């Protein structure tokens, strides 16, 4: 109540039809860590069926944006809806691939165990994991080319293989809206291609993927929408309109050399 009264931002309302049915609609989201704003007044509507790259310099609040959208960290202000309803009531529709570095890979679990975690929601509270669940999980491991590594302890896998396991776990959820936090970091080219194929499959199935992506070079190839972020949103929309020299310069400032920019922009038109 007090928080509501103190809120300086005017209360936003998600009234347009587009926002009401969008996979993800955000109005006026602000997040702060220790009095320092990390995401400021972000409004964003994700397209139904599409791959969205979230780009921006280090410290631009990309991961924070995803965590706030998932309701994992408290927000200062803002409204977030997923397919027109609150995040909490739509969790069964949301898949999440966290950063690879966020977990302890020495944990006593096999690749298959981790993928099976994606089915826990379906299995439900206190019910044990059964053979049928493991068989289902195995199918998702196959989908990312990791069936041969099912029984391996997760710490014995390479970085790319670990990322594929995380991806398979998210696929096992059979969600409609996916959040991925830097899935392409530190992976080999075969894994990169495997992830790209999965992204395409997801799009073809009519799903929406919102993916933090650090590589500006490949962003226009892999994604069809972009959200350019530097604490406040710089631009968002279809790739060709959004990924312009002006917008990128605006977000990255001096951190992006003009030569780098000129190398990037011809790609944006494709």
């Amino acid at each position, binding site marked *: 109540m007090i928080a509501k009264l103190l809120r300086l931002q005017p209360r936003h309302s998600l009234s347009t039809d587009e926002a009401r049915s969008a996979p993800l609609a955000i109005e006026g989201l602000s997040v702060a860590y220790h009095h320092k704003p990390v995401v400021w007044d972000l409004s964003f509507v994700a397209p139904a069926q599409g791959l969205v790259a979230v780009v921006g310099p280090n410290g631009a609040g990309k991961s924070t944006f995803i965590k706030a959208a998932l*309701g994992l960290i408290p927000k200062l202000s803002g409204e977030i809806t997923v397919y027109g309803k609150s995040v909490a009531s739509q969790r069964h529709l949301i898949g999440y691939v966290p950063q690879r570095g966020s977990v302890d890979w020495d*944990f006593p679990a096999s690749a298959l165990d981790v993928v099976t*975690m994606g089915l826990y929601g379906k299995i439900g509270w*206190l019910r044990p994991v059964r053979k049928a669940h493991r068989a289902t999980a195995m199918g998702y491991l196959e989908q990312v080319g990791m069936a041969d590594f099912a029984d391996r302890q997760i710490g014995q896998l390479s970085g790319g293989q670990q990322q594929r396991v995380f991806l398979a776990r998210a696929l096992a959820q059979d969600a409609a809206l996916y959040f991925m936090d830097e899935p392409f970091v530190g992976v*080999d080219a075969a894994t990169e291609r495997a992830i790209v194929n999965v992204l395409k499959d997801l799009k073809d199935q009519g799903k929406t993927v919102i993916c933090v992506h650090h590589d500006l070079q490949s962003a226009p190839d892999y994604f069809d929408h972009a959200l350019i972020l530097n604490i406040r949103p710089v631009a968002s929309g279809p790739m060709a309109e959004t990924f312009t020299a002006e917008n990128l310069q605006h977000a990255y400032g001096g951190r992006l050399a003009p030569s780098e920019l000129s190398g990037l922009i011809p790609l944006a038109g494709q």
Partner: protein
Amino acid sequence: MLTELLDILSFQGGYNTSVVLLGSALLGMAGGVIGVFSLLRKRALISDAISHATLPGITLGFLVALALTGTGKSLPFLMAGATISGILGVLLVQWIKDNTRLPEDSAIGTVLSSFFGLGVVLMSYIQTLRDGSQAGLESYLLGSTASMLQSEAEMIAIFALVITLAAIIFLKEFGLVCFDPDYAASRGWSVSKLDLLMMALLLAVVVIGLKTVGLILIIALVIIPPVTARFWTDRLGLMVGISAFTGGISCFLGAGLSALTPDFPSGATIVLTATTLFLLSLFLAPRRGVLATGLQQIFFRYRISRRRALLDLGQGRPLFSPLLVLSLKREGTLDSHGHITKSGHQKIKQMMRDQDLWNQYLTDYPEEAFAQKDWSLAMISDVLSPDLINELEERLQRQQKVTV
């Protein structure tokens, strides 16, 4: 002495002793099970804060019981006091962590020592009272099964069984929260409630274990068994099972030893038994044990030399190590005259192909290859995924065409 011990352990040391042994074994099992989760949640040290924080509660519980019932040594009052001050200790650690810049270990250290100091002062005060019942209160420091009543042992057994069952029922949920709390929260599992439940079960084990193991040593009951179990397995379910077994057998044997020598605090005999099992695992466990790691090191050097030797043979270089020549003869790569056999040629060809693929991998993905500890040591198909190997093969073929 040994026959006496065997008598006790085979439940022939009298009914009371037998119940105490059984209660202790179940307590150890409960500690082992819940300990796995606090270890994997990286909260193992919080149990030390809880146990030391119980002392003021025990002493205050004694004083309240003395005032109300005329005798201080009433188990329900002592347990209730221990629980309340244990909870206060945990809350204080949490509060310090959330509201100051102190890290958790400093918060634990501060709370642990302050509560323990307060407890010792209160205990010294109780010693000055002219009441006979305070004798034995110090057994809560180091544990004493000798003075344990049958009803106390029964209560411990029942609580331990309930705690164990609760932890096993929540195996899937606890495991998920320990491995990846952010992901669990994104799926709608209430991480804070599951954490609270884990903490409550941990607190319960500490409180019912005070009498048997004593508050100074009870941390061992929730740390040593899971650490021991981790040496033997890479699977969570098995780790819980092995940890429960280790905890159970340690408490059973430790309490038995203590029954034989009532002057030894049972906490000490239990911890030493657990430590023995830990040391055995540390040295003897397959794969993760010290001995196995040493053997792996020797085997690993042999594997490198053998790979090197096969590649040398493939390039027509001579072998200088007589030991290696001998072992290649024994495996049939070389015949008795030192010439390469038919199957030997096959092996050499295979090894050279493998090395080419590894070299290609190093060229294409230097960062990945450096991070890969198996680089060029194991056969590539055991380490990399099939699609990546296909890709390396294609590139290798293209390059070989260019050079031809």
